[in-house]
């Protein structure tokens, strides 16, 4: 196991910069997810850690050793790819033992290594099968087994669950987390799915356009997002953003309606964006009037998409009384969970 340090890491393709000086410290044994929308540079950053992409600037350290120009095989890391990347002409056992074969490990050692990994991942009965004879989940487990066999210092996962169906994704998510708890190997996990990031990580790195927007524990990002991007990205459904102005201790929407502000911002007087999560809106007779557009009950809760003027607002209610489309409901935000962002640069003010 080892810590991984990224110091002002940059990547440019030709003259186009894609990673702009990323600095992240990943501690020994930590499970860190790199999360962000498509094209934010998270996979590129992971491939740079793996050694599959050159580093244009900065420094990457694994276990205290600078690895900028160290080839992948000498970095003592293993990677699981989004599309499995299994060797189709090799059996499961051959796939998993390929790295040991390249190291010219004796047959007994290879068999022992493959057997141990297969046992961990419940693949023992499938060792003689070919990848084409496996289901998606089994293939992904083989890909993980191939990584485990090498007993690396660091595991890298590049969106490993994206190709699985929803049910299997949840199951594999748990398996990967359990695996990490068992092996305690430092893990860097790339995903565009914020739920995956929230549920699995010790620490989340939120990326956007090649920069790190915020680094923190899942609930820290949820409760204290640094800016509108993180606030909108973390949490599902996404946070509601309402444009308006802070004035005399209240937040005035464009139509003149007023919302309560946190005590710390009562002195503020400027244009701003009011952020409130759907689950932090409660029904109240003296609340903001909304016209219900769509009602989506899921059993445990009901998601209501409503309009206030031209503004669409999403609410989540846990009560069993369902509003009807066209009905007017009144909601007020839980002021202790409200965020206010700068209208100019999206930074969180509260």
């Amino acid at each position, binding site marked *: 196991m080892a810590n991984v340090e990224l110091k002002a890491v940059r990547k440019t393709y030709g003259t186009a910069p894609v990673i702009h000086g990323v600095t992240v410290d990943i501690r020994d044994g930590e499970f860190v997810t790199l999360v962000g929308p498509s094209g934010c540079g998270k996979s590129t950053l992971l*491939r740079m850690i*793996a*050694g*599959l992409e050159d580093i244009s600037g900065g420094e990457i350290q694994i276990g205290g050793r600078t690895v900028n120009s160290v*080839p*992948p*095989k000498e970095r003592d*890391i*293993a*990677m699981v*790819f*989004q*599309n*499995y*990347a*299994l*060797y*189709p*002409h090799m059996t499961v056992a051959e796939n998993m033992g*390929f*790295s040991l074969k*390249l*190291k010219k490990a004796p047959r007994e050692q290879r068999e022992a290594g493959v057997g141990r990994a297969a046992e961990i991942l419940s693949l023992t009965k499938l060792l003689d099968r*070919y*990848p*084409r*004879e*496996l289901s*998606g989940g089994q*293939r992904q487990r083989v890909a993980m087994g*191939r990584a485990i066999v*090498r007993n690396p210092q660091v595991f890298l996962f590049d969106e490993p669950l994206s*190709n699985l169906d929803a049910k299997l994704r949840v199951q594999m998510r748990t398996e990967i987390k359990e695996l990490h708890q068992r092996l305690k190997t430092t893990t860097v996990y790339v995903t565009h799915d914020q739920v995956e990031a929230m549920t699995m990580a010790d620490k989340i790195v939120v990326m956007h356009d090649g920069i790190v927007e915020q680094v923190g524990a899942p609930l820290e990002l949820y409760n204290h997002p640094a800016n509108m991007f993180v606030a909108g990205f973390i949490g599902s459904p996404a946070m509601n953003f309402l444009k308006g102005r802070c004035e005399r201790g209240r937040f005035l929407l464009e139509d003149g309606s007023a919302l309560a502000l946190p005590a710390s911002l009562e002195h503020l007087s400027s244009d701003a964006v009011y952020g409130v999560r759907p689950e932090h809106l409660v029904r109240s007779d003296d609340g903001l009037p909304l016209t219900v557009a769509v009602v989506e009950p899921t059993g445990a809760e009901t998601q209501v998409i409503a309009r206030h003027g031209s503004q669409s607002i999403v609410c989540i209610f846990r009560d069993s009384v369902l509003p009807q489309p066209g009905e007017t409901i009144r909601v007020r935000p839980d002021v202790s969970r409200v965020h206010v962002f700068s209208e100019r640069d999206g930074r969180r003010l509260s």
Partner: protein
Amino acid sequence: MSAAMSSGRPSGRFPAILLSFVFAVIVLGPVAWALATSFKTEVEAVAVPPTLWPSTATLENYLKVFRDQSFLRDFWNSVAYSVGAVALALLVGIPAGYAAARFSFKGKRALMLTILATSMVPGVALLVPTFYLLDSIGLLNSGIVVTIILSARIIPQTVWFIANFVEAVPVEIEDSAFMDGANRFQIIWNLILPLIRPGIAAVATIGIVTTWNDYITVAVFAPDVAKRTLQVALVNQVFDAVGISWSYMMAFVVIASMPVILMFGLVQKWFISGLTAGAVKG
């Protein structure tokens, strides 16, 4: 699903079946005629009106071909030139095709188009200058030189084919192998070659057919009787003989075609698609 639904309307398929039959007759007719003639006596082979099937089948023509002392030598030359040329083409074409598929470099497209363009130059146009060149440096009648020239003719198509087959192998498989500790050579040897085996088989078959059936290259650059191939020997039969024995010649043609037909039979299983199924999520 009923049989009628699964096979379509028989009346609707009739034109297609008829067309296929006409094509089959056009393509296989001469082959069948040659095969039938090879089993006839010479008298029957030239009889008017001609007979479709031999009235008394004989193996005499085949025995005559095998008894000919030069046959084995000519056969060996054909095998050596073809196999040598294809092996050389693969030796050059696999690394070149891999590089074309996996590496980006300045002028790659222009280089690949140039390679393709060289295969479009008619071989006959290069015949005379190449002959004078080889003659002036004393390399006529060299089996190695003939092999290299034959190989040069199939290298462009080999490079292009291999490049396309390598491109079809997901690059993540190579990334994964890099992570597993493989170097470039190990990746080509352990992963790429097994995965593009159907492609290699296809390229090799086309190469063998092209070089095996070559007449002009060998006839011009290796005029020595000891260096000739079956194809040259066959043509020599036509021109050298006082009276052409058609039944003997047809037996010769059948024997000369047999290795290529056998090769098709042998490599057929490698043409099966879907070898890469299961490698990556489709």
